[in-house]
């Protein structure tokens, strides 16, 4: 079965804060480039109809751009390929 084209599983470095929150710090895109996450703006449970999946959505600031990073229940992280459009 063909995987959804807009769903990109990525390597993520994350940390647990002392109060138990999981906070992503940087992601490695499929071309190997490493992107630091400057800020996590928002965190909520959300489905992504575009990428195809659901989980905890982190709206992050990366190099001046908003990206949506999803943490799925299967412990994988994914990003929607074109992140400018809605989730």
């Amino acid at each position: 079965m063909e995987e959804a084209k807009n769903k990109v599983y990525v390597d993520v470095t994350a940390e647990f804060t002392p109060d138990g929150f999981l906070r992503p710090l940087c992601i490695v895109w499929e071309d190997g480039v490493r992107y630091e996450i400057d800020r996590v703006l928002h965190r909520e449970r959300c489905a992504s109809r575009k990428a195809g999946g659901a989980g905890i959505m982190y709206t992050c600031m990366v190099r001046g751009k908003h990206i949506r990073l999803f943490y799925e229940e299967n412990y994988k992280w994914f990003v929607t390929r074109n992140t400018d459009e809605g989730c």
Partner: protein
Amino acid sequence: MDRAILHVDMNAYYASVEELHHPEFAGRPLAVGGDPEARHGIVLTANYPAKRLGVKTGMALWQARKACPTVIFVPPRMDLYLRFSRLARDIYREYTDLVEPFGIDESWLDVTQSLSCKGSALSIAEEIRARVRHELGLTVSIGVSFNKIFAKFGSDYKKPDAVTTITRENYKDIVWRAPAEDLLYVGRATIRKLHTLGIHTVGDIATAEPDLLLSQFGKMGLVLWSFANGTDASPVSPYEAESPIKSIGNSTTTPRDLTDENDVRLVLLLLSESVAARLRENHFVGRLVGIYVRDNELCSFTRQKKISIPTNISEEIADYATDLFRQNYAWERPIRSLGVRVGQLQPDAYCYQMDLFTDEVLREKQLKVDIAVDGLRNRFGHDCILRGRMYFDRYLSGLDAKAEDHMVHPHSYFEAGNRTGSEELLFHMKQEDDV
């Protein structure tokens, strides 16, 4: 005060989860169907576009393809469906601890105690609907009512992505006008009998004489009467309430249709071995053996019988199951699924009445053999030791009898006992008779 009960039904569940994970198929007819290679080749769920084109649950894949040539088949991913089912229940649990699952995709919620802080039942229902849609990307239909039966009716009334309220004021307009088969537990056999009595709608059941229903259907007649009148008092069970194990069973869809008694015996043996092993593992013996049979047109039935000496011996269970099968199946059609269940459990250390005609020495030997086989299989895997019969058809006997598909079967409404209030009704009727 009336209870506030919601019934949440996840629409076209398996298909909706697959649609979410395959955005490239958005808006196209899609059906979740078993692997055609392993010949579990039936449609488990179709999405709405596919349903509109005539694809129905239970169709063989080739029939579905004939009805709708553009339909896309995806193999089922049970782990994914169980995960999303759990996520949905996590949402429900934020509103009440009284969440009672009914199968994988339905739940009852009693939100009576949440009304003071969350507003009306309708607003809770709307909030849950919106949250499941936003957070899980799935649609649900919700029925809101003052008892479980009408709530369930409401969730079926309008779908997908809708909320229906059934109140004491409108139930006669909505529920009573519906055909009788829309009521829970009115199946094919019951509806035939109801029709001969001139009962066609839910309202007809509600206004029928309870005595008549009792004489025709036994206690179940009174249950239906209370369902139809909205007097069903069954409570919503607390989430994950430890229900004591009442029975142990296994069922399977076979890799090919079963066409004769040898096939059936082989599969019943496999299932009985698995059931008996689980009985021994949990230190139970049972006094009731039941079978489940489904033919290749998906007509199914269950039969059970009490046995005099409680058992956890594979061979014995298989023999009882085979007897039951022989007495109840006339081979109108080949068989697609079989199940074996042992109920009325008691601890295996409990004493029991022997009888003169049963060879207890043999039983003891059989049990020892079973225990030895359990030990071998635990160490070296299931296939390390098999009955000779299994080698007549390794394709058929290779099926995984341990498959946990029993956990997805819909539960019985009466799993926690009959709590509908019909027993009280019967009691009062008897009292009136005595007077």
